[in-house]
């Protein structure tokens, strides 16, 4: 963990050095460049009480954005794996189950799925579902189809000799997957899983439409009361940028560590 924190600190340093000056430069240059809009940074000025309050309101959404994305991706990884395995079968029925699920889920836009799960599912299933869990469920279902494809490709990329060797030392299917194939496959698909997490963090902004108090929703609410969309949405962009750059850095660190273990 020490090395990870060091790595994150390094990256934060990099963000501080590159991203922050860049955005400040943009903020200064845009109005100078003949932009008709006047900037009004006062809404998020950290030196005034009102600016502080607004900033805190915006940044607090981070908790929901992360909680939503991380919960959803954990579920989607498990569901994705469970959907991927029948897709690798030599029999037709399990393979069709895999295909139907993947094709159907991929055909539905995430936003539509979020709306349907929140407004439709409670009526169909006769349950009440919170905004948070509706969001998690919709994101997880939508992502699980992609996870299934990633897992399938990863597992298929493992040399047939590994299965044969596992069979030759009498491992059954479950143990072969658990101890031989999946550890190698997961290592190979880690970059893809990292990309899915990044994707998920971005897609979680859509859950704002059902009232989830995450980053985007808060920005929208603040815009309505403050009438400063340019500044507030710029802060929103920076929030996503920082989170996602950190996640990308973490994934790359993990990748390198796993490669070193080879």
């Amino acid at each position, binding site marked *: 963990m020490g090395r990870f924190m060091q790595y994150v600190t390094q990256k934060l340093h990099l963000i501080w050095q590159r991203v922050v000056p860049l955005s400040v430069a943009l903020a200064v240059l845009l109005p100078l460049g003949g932009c008709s809009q006047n900037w009004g940074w006062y809404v998020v000025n950290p030196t005034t009480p009102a600016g502080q309050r607004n900033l805190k309101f915006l940044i607090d959404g981070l908790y929901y954005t992360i909680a939503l994305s991380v919960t959803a991706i954990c579920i989607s990884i498990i569901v994705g794996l469970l959907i991927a395995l029948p897709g690798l079968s030599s029999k037709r029925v399990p393979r069709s189950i895999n295909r139907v699920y993947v094709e159907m889920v991929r055909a539905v836009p995430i936003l539509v799925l979020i709306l349907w799960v929140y407004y439709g599912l409670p009526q169909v299933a006769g349950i009440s579902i919170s905004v948070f869990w509706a969001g998690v469920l919709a994101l997880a279902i939508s992502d699980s189809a992609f996870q299934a494809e990633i897992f399938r490709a990863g597992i298929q990329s493992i040399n047939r000799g590994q299965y044969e060797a596992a069979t030759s030392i009498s491992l059954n299917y479950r143990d072969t997957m658990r101890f031989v194939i999946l550890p*190698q496959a997961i290592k190979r698909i880690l970059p893809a899983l990292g990309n899915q997490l990044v994707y998920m963090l971005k897609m979680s902004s859509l859950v704002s439409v059902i009232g989830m108090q995450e980053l985007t929703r808060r920005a929208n609410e603040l815009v309505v009361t403050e009438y400063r969309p340019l500044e507030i949405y710029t802060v929103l962009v920076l929030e996503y940028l920082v989170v996602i750059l950190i996640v990308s850095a973490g994934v790359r660190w993990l990748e390198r560590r796993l490669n070193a273990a080879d």
Partner: protein
Amino acid sequence: MPAPPFLSLKNVSKYFADFCALDAVSLDVSLGQKLVICGPSGSGKSTLIRCVNQLEQHQHGQIYIDGVDVRDGAAGQAAIRDNVGMVFQQFNLFPHLTILQNLTLGPIRARGLPAAEAADLAMHYLERVRIPEQSAKYPSQLSGGQQQRVAIARALCMKPKLMLFDEPTSALDPEMIAEVLDVITELAEAGMTMICVTHEMGFARQVADMMLFMDHGRIVEMAPPRRFFAAPETARCKLFLSQILRH
């Protein structure tokens, strides 16, 4: 009264689509016997031994191990599991596990051995293939010859009665072939039953008590090594031997 064969193939045929890889092959192997199979590529040598442990499924005929049909459901699978070990041309070690973990995985998961006991067993066989000092390393840190010896030890950890070697030295650099063949020779001398597909004729002469020559999915010639090398009966076998022994 000869002992009943430990392994018995009766009219075994195997097709890959239209290609006939094995054409009604019959073969008996008794415990303690050492068979070496040679022949041109595509002649069915590998397919033959891969059918024995059902890495390939044959379409016709029967294969019996210790009297049990290998396709007889759970009993057949158990007959393979309990009796047959295999060494591959490409080693097929598990790259993400250490040498010791490669060796203990089967005994722990498939045989239910406690971890400590499995580790003792693994170290015993690593000493036998003369690389106990490498046990904590990963396969990629070992030379090809060392990796293949680990693969042999991994198979031995399952205590098989029959060992199948599928061209165990074909993927090795020349200077590493001897160390692997030495280990297999020692194993043969210790009485292990084995079927070995190889083109190492010096090794075959030394180890085999029966030579098989295959071509087009059939066993064309089968004889003790002295007769096999001195006076091959078929023209096809004569030509093959002259080609591989020329240099």
